[in-house]
């Protein structure tokens, strides 16, 4: 239960971090909060030769307001989002979700960028960024690039991030004041990874009626037009949607996802009624 040997460097800038990663030729990894990588090191599921600590890069802990979005630096902690120490543009959705991530001792250290780069399908941010149509900001040897959320996660624990790139932040579109959301996940105990995730957002001013099914075997499944799942509950439509998300019928996973999807749909209907 002890980590293997690794070299550790703390980068002062994105350029420096990218330089170290590039010279490690695929054997290096960026690290921020250690909350997923730490256990993986101790269990020796990960055995990188070099870890490049990016938490000293000022830009990565900064927040930038844009007219219709906010850019959160990759090294912002879940607890900072939970406590709204960073501004919230999602009508409370991100702080609500942050509060449900692991435990406070983990949220104090774990970062939004680390979670997104780790790309555990059962984690919260990866599903929510898909729901909100966020953009991923990446820096590599060739400079910065922006990745659409649909192109970010390629499978469980696999992203488009190259071994010499770092995720610097995520651009999250602002929800209108009249937007409503629901977020439901199923865990057997508070703080563990989700068995099923479903979330909806309805933002009429921006023409958005979107849903997401998370905690699947791979990338979250986005429902671009979720109107039919929200107006009334049709078990057959829900089952079809879950199959489209890669969840085979007749399984525990299907049943638990169906229940969570229905609850998220119902929660959004209630939120809309309360607002009306």
């Amino acid at each position, binding site marked *: 239960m*002890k980590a293997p040997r690794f070299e*550790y460097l*703390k980068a002062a800038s994105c350029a420096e971090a990218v330089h170290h990663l590039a010279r490690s030729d695929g054997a290096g990894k960026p690290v921020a909060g250690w*909350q997923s990588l730490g*256990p993986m090191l*101790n269990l020796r599921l990960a055995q990188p030769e070099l870890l490049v600590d990016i938490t000293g890069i000022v830009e990565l802990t900064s927040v930038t307001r844009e007219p219709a979005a906010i850019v959160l630096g990759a090294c912002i902690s879940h607890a900072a989002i939970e406590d709204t120490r960073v501004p919230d543009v999602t009508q409370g959705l991100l702080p609500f979700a942050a509060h449900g991530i692991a435990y406070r001792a983990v949220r*104090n*250290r774990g970062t939004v960028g680390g979670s997104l780069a780790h790309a555990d399908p059962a984690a919260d941010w990866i599903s929510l960024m898909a729901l909100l149509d966020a953009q991923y900001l990446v820096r590599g040897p060739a400079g910065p690039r922006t990745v659409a959320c649909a192109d970010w996660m390629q499978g469980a624990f696999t992203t488009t991030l190259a071994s010499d790139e770092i995720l610097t932040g995520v651009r999250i579109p602002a929800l209108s004041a009249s937007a409503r959301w629901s977020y439901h996940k199923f865990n057997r*105990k508070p703080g563990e990874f989700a068995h099923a995730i479903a979330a909806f957002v309805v933002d009429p001013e921006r023409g958005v009626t979107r849903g997401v099914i998370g905690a699947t075997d791979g990338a979250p499944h986005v429902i671009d037009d979720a109107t039919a799942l929200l107006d009334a509950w049709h078990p057959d439509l829900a089952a079809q949607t879950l199959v489209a998300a890669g969840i085979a019928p007749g399984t525990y996973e299907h049943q638990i996802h169906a229940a969570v999807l229905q609850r998220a749909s119902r929660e959004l209907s209630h939120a809309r009624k309360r607002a009306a």
Partner: protein
Amino acid sequence: MTTITLLVNGKSVRANVEPRTHLADFLREELNLTGTNLGCEQGVCGACTVQIGGAPARSCIAFAVACDGGELRTIEGFDDDPLMAQLRNAFSAKHALQCGYCTPGMLITAHDIATRLPDADEARVRYELAGNLCRCTGYVGIVRAVMQVLDARRGVGGR
């Protein structure tokens, strides 16, 4: 080996560490601060919870080298802390420990609850304690102890 400088329980510490040494091993083996207990070493059980920069964190999945320049507080660093004294007394009074292995981590988490969430009700206390596992007491005593301290600080009697 990398040289690090830390403030541990108010005292400046300079040490050479291997990057692979996690913070709990560093505290226990190098600084003899054995109040921090190691349970799972994968960030699940909470026994090794300490304060890093004033906030609770798992010391088994923090690495000493990455804490360079930071401030740590272990259970030994709360000897003169009035809130921790209240919590220790309540843990005794409410039978909130048997073997005591989880207790240092429980106390650090309880201290955070009382500081950050002074208005917490019992359900919230249970939720906040979910990241600290106890295999003896069944949690009833622990929750009662934390609630007793919260009530006392709110000026509510009896329990």
